[in-house]
Each structure stands twice: as structure tokens, then as C-alpha cells.
């Protein structure tokens, strides 16, 4: 207010009132009005932008500074029991094109760049260009699973409308050794076979993301929101990769040497039921499966059931011992080496005469086991087969596992019971056979087999349970040793330095209307006998060379695998004097 009054005061009191410029009222008002309107305009505009319609500018700002960054997640790592990685995912890129953008920006004109692209992808340039001919399409993969180095090169080509996308690729450093067991994933990182399929959910994580604000240089200056992804779980198997590799090598050599259709082996830890190795031949390379036939992908150890033949004979003995119809040192008379049961003939390859229980197993006498089997009630016999896990799943939960083949029937003829005692009329998988031998070796306590160590899954797991008495199991176990000793059917199964026991099985393969000319050779064994640690089962399917008895084919393979495994597991030799002190003393004496 004082401002307005000031000139008036001066006019009254000052001396030079004549020259005082008079206030031109309308100019003054005009200036004031203009000034006020400018500021009002600014204020209104600011209010409009800030309060009434702020969304547009917020959006404009965000589109320049706000970014969503995805945090990559990779499929979990599968390791063996010692932490050796068996399956690892690494990032790769997918190259894809947006034909619409290519046509809009005339990307096809750069012929030399397309030739460079076709060159690096190893594709025909015309074929590549024809993929993006249709301008209506918005997405077409040019190549997937491209290495990062190659992807960088493609990015530097700078063809408009060609982009890269992150994806990951699964590598199996052990290749064919563990191929069937671990299985494979498809191109979208989804497990489609084996353990990859069984534990697909566990192995798959969900990617996290974070919303950030970036500055002009593209650096992250503020994290607005983070969404935590679910971390992919890792899987620890019970497999020991060293034993697995050893077993695979032996199996593969055996398959080629005996000209077999296939071969498989399984090594099981007796006390825990852990599967230490599970191998199949022929196998495939899981890192390059462009020409893999399905029969190579099958995990034969658990999917294929065979009539186990003589390798099931210990059960007949065990059953008789458990029931009490015979004592450990009883003699069974198998004269005259054959007998007729309801019109069918049961015979040994020669007349073996009077045999102890041990000799029945040692010489694999059909007569002996038939007599033992017929000496116990049929339900008790069948229960023993059932309790040893021959008609149920082994507990691995692996996809495609077979429970074997067994025809439940209410009436059994004597001949059928007799054939059951020497392993015909029932089909079992290699894994089931291994579980049966592990039960005997474990003093009659039936352990479910398991393949995964850190399992968090609450899937049904059969409990370990005692199925036969320790005395009977131990008695049968010691009888098995005779098989690998002089006079037994499988001296080639012996492992130097260790006491091993086992049983051969040479069975003919059933074909329509009877039994054909093809054989299945099995050797199942336990080592070391004084303190059983591992059970190994070797199966050689359809050997077509000169050797087709299990004692000649499967037994040496068993010996090689078991011997190597015992050494690798640092298990003390029990068949020779071993002390470090004698060796040290010998060294000192200069011997």
C-alpha cells in the first residue's frame, strides 16, 4: 500500500512538484493486469499439468527412465553323491525375426549382411530370407540355442527386425554315461525324460524381476520394485560318477564283445539302498540328440523285465530255510536228474546226485530248487517272492519303471511252482533283482532303492522292513560264495582280493508259443561277503556271439565292475592279509 501512496506524499512535500510525472492510470492497470495474467497463466498451466492431467507426462517420463529387468534363472544343477556335476544349464541365445519390422525398415535390402548371417548360422541364405517373406507375421525363430559369441556377431550385423532372446541350454558333461538315468530336456528347458522329467518342477525356478529407474547413461539409479523369483532347486543323486563311468565302460565293451542287443548294470549300496550306478548300453549322446532312436533312450534297468532264470534260485533255498522244511546242512537227493510234474519235465543238465543246499546253488540244480519249492506251502513261497520286492516297485519312483510281470492266480500247478523256483514264469527288472540281492546281503531287511539323496519330495517311500530272518539270509549269502569258487558256474565272477558271492542266470527269451533261441544272461552278486557293501547286477540281453552262458558273459563284467567299485569305495579287501605295517616293515627290510 505504501508503494501507491509514495508518489502522492512526495508531490505534497517535495519542492519540484511540477516535473513529477503523473501516474497514467490505464497504463499502470494494464501492466499490472498483464503481469498478473502471466503468473496466473503459469499457475493454471502448472496446476493442469500437475493435478488435472498428470498421467500423460508421468507416462512419458516413465517410458524414458523406467525399465523392467528380468533376473535370469537357470535350471537346477544335478550332481552325484560327491558333488560332481552331471547336468548344468548355461545361457545361450535364440535369434528371432520380426518380418513386419524387416519389411518396414527395408531390412532385406542388405544382401551382404544376410549372407553373413546365413553363413554364421550355417543355413541357406535363400531359405533364411524366405522365412521372413510374409510381412504380416510378427515372430519367427531363425535359430535357437545359439552360443553367446555367435549371438554377439549377429547383434553386430545390425539387420533391422532381427533380435536376440535369452534362453538356456542343458549340457551333460558325462554324455552317454548317465544319459538314460538323467534323461533330457526339450528345447524349452522342460524335462521330458528320466530324472529331468520326474523332478521337473523342483529343477525349474521362476525368474525374478525388478523395476528400476535409469539415468541418461542407462545406469540403474533407483530400484522401484523387486519381485523375487523362486530359485531352482539342485538335485543330488546317490550315483557315484566314478562307478557309473566304470560300469558304463564295462557294459559297453561287453555289449560289443558279446554282440549283444543291449546290456545294463546296476550297483546298489546294501545298507542304504542307494543306487551307486545305473547304466545301459546302447546309449546316446544327450548333448546332441539329432538322431537318437527311442530304444537307446530307455532306462532298461528299470523298464525292461526279463525272466531272470537261475538267478532267482536263492529265493527257493531261502524260502525253504525260512519255513524250516530244511536245515542249512541238509542233503537233497536230485537223482535221477529229472522228474515229471503233471506231464512236464524238470531236469538238470546232468544227474548231479545228492546235493547240499550250497551245492544246489553252486551247480544251479533245477531239480534241487524244485524240490525245495515244492516242500513249502505255495502261499508261503509266493509271499517270499513278494516280500523280496520282485512284484512291486523298487522305490526309485523313476518314470517308466516296470513292476515286472507276474500272473497272480488262484491255482498253481506243481510244475508252475517248480518253474518259478528256477526263475521262469515271472519277469523282473534288473533293479528288482538288485533289490532282492540287497535284501539278502542286508541280513533280510528290505530297503527301498533310492536314486535321489536330498529329496524334499514327500512321495510315497516304502519303509525298510525285515522280510526274512537274519540267520536264513546269512546262510544263503554264504552259499552264494561257492558259485564264484572252483566248481561253481561263474568262476569268472571272482574278484581278486575280495570274497564275492553271486548267482548266474541264463534264461531263454520267451517268444509267442514257447521259448526262442535268444538268451538273457544275468549275474547278480554281493561283495565283500564278510561285510556286504555293494550288490551288482549285470544283464546282457541276446548275446549273439559264441558265448551265451552267463558264467562266460555277465560274470566277467560283474567282476570288473565290482572290483573297480570296491577299490573306488575304499572297501577293505577281505580275502587277503592287508596291513600297512607289513608293507612298511618289508620296505625297511629291503624286500
Amino acid at each position, binding site marked *: 500500500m505504501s508503494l501507491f501512496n509514495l508518489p502522492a506524499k512526495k508531490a505534497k512535500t517535495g519542492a519540484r512538484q511540477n516535473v513529477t510525472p503523473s501516474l497514467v492510470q490505464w497504463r499502470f492497470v494494464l501492466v499490472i493486469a498483464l503481469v498478473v495474467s502471466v503468473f496466473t497463466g503459469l499457475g493454471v498451466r502448472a496446476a493442469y499439468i500437475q493435478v488435472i492431467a498428470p498421467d500423460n507426462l508421468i507416462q512419458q517420463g516413465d517410458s524414458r527412465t523406467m525399465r523392467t529387468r528380468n*533376473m*535370469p534363472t*537357470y535350471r537346477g544343477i544335478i550332481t552325484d553323491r560327491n558333488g*560332481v*556335476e552331471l547336468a*548344468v*544349464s*548355461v*545361457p545361450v541365445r535364440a535369434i528371432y525375426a520380426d518380418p513386419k519390422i524387416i519389411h518396414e525398415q527395408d531390412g532385406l535390402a542388405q544382401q551382404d549382411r544376410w549372407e553373413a548371417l546365413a553363413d554364421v548360422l550355417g543355413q541357406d541364405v535363400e531359405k533364411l530370407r524366405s522365412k521372413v517373406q510374409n510381412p504380416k507375421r510378427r515372430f519367427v525363430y531363425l535359430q535357437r540355442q545359439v552360443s553367446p559369441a555367435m549371438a554377439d556377431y549377429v547383434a553386430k550385423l545390425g539387420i533391422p527386425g532381427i533380435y536376440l532372446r535369452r534362453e538356456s541350454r542343458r*549340457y551333460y*558333461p*558325462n*554324455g552317454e*554315461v548317465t544319459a538314460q538315468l538323467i534323461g533330457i530336456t526339450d528345447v524349452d528347458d522342460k524335462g521330458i525324460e528320466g530324472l529331468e522329467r520326474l523332478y521337473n518342477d523342483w529343477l525349474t525356478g521362476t525368474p525374478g524381476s525388478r523395476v*528400476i529407474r535409469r*539415468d541418461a547413461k542407462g*545406469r*540403474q*539409479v*533407483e*530400484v522401484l520394485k523387486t519381485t523375487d523369483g523362486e530359485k531352482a532347486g539342485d538335485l543330488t543323486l546317490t550315483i557315484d*560318477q*566314478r562307478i*557309473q*563311468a*566304470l560300469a*558304463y*565302460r564295462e557294459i559297453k565293451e561287453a555289449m560289443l564283445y558279446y554282440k549283444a542287443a543291449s546290456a545294463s548294470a546296476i550297483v546298489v549300496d546294501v545298507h542304504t539302498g542307494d543306487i551307486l550306478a545305473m547304466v545301459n548300453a546302447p546309449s546316446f549322446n544327450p548333448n546332441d540328440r539329432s538322431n537318437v532312436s527311442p530304444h537307446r533312450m530307455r532306462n532298461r534297468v528299470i523298464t525292461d523285465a526279463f525272466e531272470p532264470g537261475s538267478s532267482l534260485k536263492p529265493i527257493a533255498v531261502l524260502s525253504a530255510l525260512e519255513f524250516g522244511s530244511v536245515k542249512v546242512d541238509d542233503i537233497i537227493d536230485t537223482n535221477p536228474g529229472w522228474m515229471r510234474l503233471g506231464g512236464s519235465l524238470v531236469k538238470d543238465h546232468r544227474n548231479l546226485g545228492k546235493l547240499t543246499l550250497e551245492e544246489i546253488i553252486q551247480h544251479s540244480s533245477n531239480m534241487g530248487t524244485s524240490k525245495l519249492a515244492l516242500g513249502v506251502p505255495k502261499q508261503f513261497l509266493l509271499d517270499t517272492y513278494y516280500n523280496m520286492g520282485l512284484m512291486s516297485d523298487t522305490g526309485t519312483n523313476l518314470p517308466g519303471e516296470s513292476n515286472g510281470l507276474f500272473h497272480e492266480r488262484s491255482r498253481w500247478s506243481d510244475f508252475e511252482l517248480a518253474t518259478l523256483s528256477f526263475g521262469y514264469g515271472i519277469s523282473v527288472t534288473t533293479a528288482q533283482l538288485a533289490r532282492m540281492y540287497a535284501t539278502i546281503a542286508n541280513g533280510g531287511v528290505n530297503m527301498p532303492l533310492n536314486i535321489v539323496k536330498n529329496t524334499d519330495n514327500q512321495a510315497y517311500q516304502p519303509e525298510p522292513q525285515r522280510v526274512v530272518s537274519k540267520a536264513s539270509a546269512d546262510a544263503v549269502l554264504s552259499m552264494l560264495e561257492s558259485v564264484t569258487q572252483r566248481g561253481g558256474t561263474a568262476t569268472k565272477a571272482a*574278484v*581278486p*582280493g*575280495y570274497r564275492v558271492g553271486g548267482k548266474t542266470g541264463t534264461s531263454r527269451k520267451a517268444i509267442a508259443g514257447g521259448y526262442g533261441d535268444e538268451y538273457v544272461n544275468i549275474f547278480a552278486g554281493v561283495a565283500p561277503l564278510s561285510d556286504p557293501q555293494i550288490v551288482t547286477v549285470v544283464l546282457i540281453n541276446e548275446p549273439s556271439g559264441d558265448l551265451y552262458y552267463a558264467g562266460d558273459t555277465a560274470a566277467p563284467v560283474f567282476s570288473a565292475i565290482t572290483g*573297480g567299485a570296491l*577299490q573306488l569305495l575304499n572297501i*577293505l*579287501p577281505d*580275502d*587277503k592279509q*592287508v*596291513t*600297512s605295517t607289513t*608293507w612298511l616293515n618289508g620296505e625297511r627290510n629291503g624286500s
Partner: protein
Amino acid sequence: MTSQQSQRTPTSTNFSLVLILVSDLARNKLRVLLYLMVVTSAIAVVLGSHLNRQQNIVMESLMQEKDDLDVEWRNLVLEQRALTEHNRIENEVEKNLDMYRPSAEEEVVVKIK
């Protein structure tokens, strides 16, 4: 303030502006203090957000580094496993180092107890 000035102006024309300012400020200690605090906190806010941004930038580069290292690690693991594959090692030592798996007679067991 205007009233004080108009009181003094007629009595003495000889005065020091600095003196006035100082005495004036000294009389309103609280306001001066508040003013300084406002300025300080404003600077602190600017500084804080700047430092925060710097930390964010560092964090991003560290996360990037972590991802890169993870990728490198995965590739190295693959390489290691491919090179140390059990059968490959056995072949190599047999061929190049003239080693072999000891037979049962040659085996020496060292018990640790």
C-alpha cells in the same frame, strides 16, 4: 524492520550496514538456526540421494558381474567335468603316464586309526 530504519534515518546518517546485519541476526538466533538447518538438510537430501544413486549404480554393476561370473562358472564346470571324466582320465594316465590299476597283490591298504 522498515519501522526501525525510518526511526534511525533522521537521527544519524552515519551507520554500518554490516553492524546492523550482525546485530539483527544476533537478535533472531532461533530463526537463523532454523534457516541454517533447512539449508543443511536440503543439501543433505541432495547429497543423500546422489550417494544412493551411486550405490545403486554400483549394485547394478555388481549384480551384472555376479551374473557374468555365474555364467563363466557354469562354463568352467562343464569344461572341468568334460576334462576330468573318469574314463578319460583312466585312458590318459594309461597312455601318457604309464600307470595302471593295481592288482590285488600289489594293493597296499593304509588304515587310519
